[in-house]
């Protein structure tokens, strides 16, 4: 049980009243942080979708989209919500590049998105969902190298089942 101080207000008993109630702790703790479970590797990954491609077994996926005029990189969740993105359409990146498409643009975009991912606290990202034969092309290889050098690990840790 807890003893509460008497109603007479005196400086000495005030500090006792202040911290004596700290010990009361609810037995069940709920953490509302949506990123908590995936950072502890306890969250579920969507393991279905085995008959389709690309698979959705990840917490965050890095997707590089190369269009005719620009290059864009998105880090998104399995339900499609984009968390962090970078594109050569942004003025901050476009002004330093000679052309917003091409290998040099991909490489610099990789550096920028690695920096933004680390700032957002995303350290592990899945980069598997690229078309297999396109993985060999120069721009995607340079992008991957730049992201790895930026400090982001390109495969997610395995979920803890037990």
């Amino acid at each position, binding site marked *: 049980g807890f003893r509460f101080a008497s109603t007479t207000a005196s400086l000495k008993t005030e500090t006792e*009243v*202040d*911290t004596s*109630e*700290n*010990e*009361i*702790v*609810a037995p069940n*703790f*709920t*953490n*509302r*942080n*949506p*990123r*908590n*479970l995936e*950072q*502890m590797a*306890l969250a579920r990954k969507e393991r279905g979708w085995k008959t389709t491609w690309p698979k959705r077994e990840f917490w965050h996926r890095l997707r590089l*989209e190369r269009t005719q005029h620009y290059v864009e990189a998105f880090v998104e*969740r399995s*339900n*499609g*919500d*984009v*968390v*962090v*993105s970078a594109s050569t359409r*942004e*003025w*901050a*990146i*476009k*002004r*330093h*590049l*000679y*052309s917003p498409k*091409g*290998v*040099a643009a991909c*490489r*610099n975009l990789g*550096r*920028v998105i690695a*920096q*933004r991912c*680390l*700032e*957002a*606290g*995303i350290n592990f990202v899945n980069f598997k969902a690229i*078309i297999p034969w*396109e993985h060999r092309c120069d721009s995607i290889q*340079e992008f991957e190298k730049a992201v790895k050098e930026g400090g982001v690990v390109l495969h997610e840790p395995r979920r803890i089942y037990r």
Partner: protein
Amino acid sequence: MAAPLLSAALRGARGGRSFGTAAVLWKRAAPLGPMPNEDVDVARLEELQRYRSFARYLRQAERAGREPRWWNTYRKHSHPPAEPQPDIGLPPERLSRAEELKERKRILRENRRNAEMERAARLRTVLIPLDEVRAEWERTSGPFHKQRVAKHCGLFRDLFRGATFTPWVALRVHYSQEDEYLVPVYYGNMVTPSEASSPPEVSYEADKGSLWTLLLTNPDGHLRDADSEYLHWLVTNIPGSDIKAGKEMCHYLPPFPAMGTGYHRFIFLLFKQHGPIDFSQDARPTPCYSLKMRTFSTFDFYRKHNDAMTPAGLAFFQCQWDSSVTSTFHQLLNMREPVFEFVRPPPFHPPQVKFPRHQPLRYLDRYRDTQEPTYGIY
């Protein structure tokens, strides 16, 4: 043919045991929208434009998968469309767009004429200055990106019950360590409690004569009530960007995420005040180590001072338990340290059926109260 089946099934549904038939579930009706591939003219297939590459097809397919459809999709089921949330932030500054565009076009034209840049781009040696890019990003698309990350970390849902704001003011927070090492706080990065043990240095751009309020809360760490937050630092009526000159209503308490509870969010909120505000109701006594007094709700706090201030800046970090938290509990908060363990939700099993179809013998184990496995005992 459908009508007698339908009436028989309906008769069954009204009373007695009905026999299950899918005829009850669907009846002939016009589709509620256009069928897929309706616009493809099957008679003249040779005139159709081909994809000619898998990448083009994949991009088209992914874009089509994201479109809203009139039939039920998994996307609609798992991702119900959100109602538009009220915006409680500062209005965006309306700069003259035409001049900005002209300036940008001029810079781009100069880039294209620059032979050095072309050489660097073609030889793939160009490396853009990341700090300049970041500075420009903070001015242009930074606030929107920060708002997006904050939305995904559930900040608006937990602090303001859904109301969002765009953090136009770039809040730079960093904790300084002993050997002149700086641990910055961006939007979601990891900081340990030992690094965050002393108050950080906060800087932001502010006009002279403007008043600000800085608030540090932890919406995840409450040990008694899951819906309220802990107030770690509250400095009010800050003139300009000088934190020391502001009135500290609640002194800084280092973060104390309990062991086993995982990562907690610690959120710095910067409010712009329209004038001097009286915060005497929110004042905590100077050495305030009582968790009851530090229990806080940003929603009620903001609702009280709604008219006089608006949220303008945002920065948050994720924090996990480490050994300095033990000393915080023992010395500062004067309590025993609580230790928690992750409890997995029980595995879901559908209601038990008397004659299960295509189930192994361990089907019975799933519904037995005791632990008697029928597998691996021989």
